[in-house]
């Protein structure tokens, strides 16, 4: 059963008590809220996600208004996980961003049974491109463009590597776009379903792209890593996709992983295997269409 199989009122009932448990990739997340605007957006943007019947939840999260006084005077919302608030409240109108950032925090801070790269990941024909990148390098924009160009979304934020076999586990969630990127994707992919813009967040203006239905339906399908591409959007830059020495790629992947040091030797061996299995490139670009075309050619090349 997926969220869209519930009526809105049924969803509201569950979100209040005992909370609605959704499967987000490998995680069962119980979400609670009574905030009307947030519930409406969840029904619109998370509609394809499976309702998890697992008795064990990975995270229990809640978004709710702060004090009664604050309901009238600069109202705020706060994110809770397992009853505790890990960070400061935000303006009430930033309800969806705080939910998404909060779930990101839960995944990053916990779940060390997987090696977690700060990376977008897309897949086609069973092989994945991983885009390890620091904030501001354009990975989310590139990822949103690719998943509307024939690629399956595995993840926009976390490259989850399974220690048993090095496969990339899918975590298809909302793709947040910032500032100018929102309009860029509207133009590039008019069919993309983009939620409302949230202005004045700590990241500027943020809007969320709903992942394609197929990506969410196939969330149980992992993929083998095929390419490591380190992207960087550079104003005015022609597209440059250049091979990267593997030793350098290793160091960049290792420094990019959220929990590389926590997993120790496991991390080392996973990164070693991944770099060995992948063709490694740096990508600089300014035109999204050219970048997508270059990645298409790369993936179809027999030497890719």
């Amino acid at each position, binding site marked *: 059963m997926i969220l869209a199989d519930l009526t809105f009122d049924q969803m509201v009932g569950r979100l209040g008590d005992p909370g609605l448990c959704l499967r987000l990739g490998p995680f069962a997340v119980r979400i609670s809220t009574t905030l009307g605007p947030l519930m409406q957006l969840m029904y619109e943007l998370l509609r394809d996600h499976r309702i998890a019947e697992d008795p064990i939840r990975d995270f229990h999260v809640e978004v709710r208004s702060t004090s009664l006084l604050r309901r009238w005077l600069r109202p705020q919302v706060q994110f809770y996980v397992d009853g505790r608030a890990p960070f400061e409240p935000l303006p009430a109108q930033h309800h969806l961003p705080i939910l998404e950032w909060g779930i990101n925090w839960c995944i990053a801070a916990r779940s060390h049974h997987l090696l977690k790269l700060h990376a977008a990941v897309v897949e086609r024909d069973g092989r994945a491109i991983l885009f390890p990148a620091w904030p501001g390098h354009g990975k989310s924009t590139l990822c949103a463009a690719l998943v509307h160009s024939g690629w399956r979304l595995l993840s926009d934020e976390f490259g989850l590597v399974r220690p048993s076999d090095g496969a990339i586990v899918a975590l298809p969630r909302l793709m947040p776009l910032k500032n100018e990127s929102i309009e860029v994707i509207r133009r590039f992919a008019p069919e993309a379903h983009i939620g409302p813009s949230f202005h004045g967040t700590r990241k500027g203006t943020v809007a969320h792209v709903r992942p394609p239905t197929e990506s969410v339906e196939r969330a149980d399908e992992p993929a083998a890593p095929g390419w490591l591409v380190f992207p960087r959007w550079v104003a005015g830059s022609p597209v440059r996709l250049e091979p990267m*020495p*593997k*030793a*350098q790629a*290793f*160091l960049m992947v*290792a420094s990019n992983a959220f929990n*590389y*040091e926590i997993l*120790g*030797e496991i991390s*080392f*061996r996973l*990164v*070693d295997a991944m*770099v060995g299995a992948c063709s490694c490139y740096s990508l600089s670009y300014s035109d999204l269409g050219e970048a997508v075309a270059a990645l298409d050619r790369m993936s179809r090349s027999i030497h890719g």
Partner: protein
Amino acid sequence: MPTAWSLPDDSRLVWSNWRTGHIVYQASSGETHYLNATGASVLRRLKEGPATLEDICRHIESVEGLPADEETVRQAAALLNRFDELGLVARFDSAAGA
């Protein structure tokens, strides 16, 4: 008595070797290090057994083709000191260790 170098007793290194460099995981500290060809070659030499600075310089000369001159000695000494700081090698008195 010349100073000599060896791998520490609790040393376990896991290697990731590429044409352009070597990455090594140091199990005792949990740290990951990047080594160029010379650094990797010195650690592999010490895996065979303890060596003095002079032994290391001769090894570098034979493997890397670099002359065992003053500059090589200076750089080899700096490399070994750095490895010592990282716990990758241990320094001892060669007569006592023999």
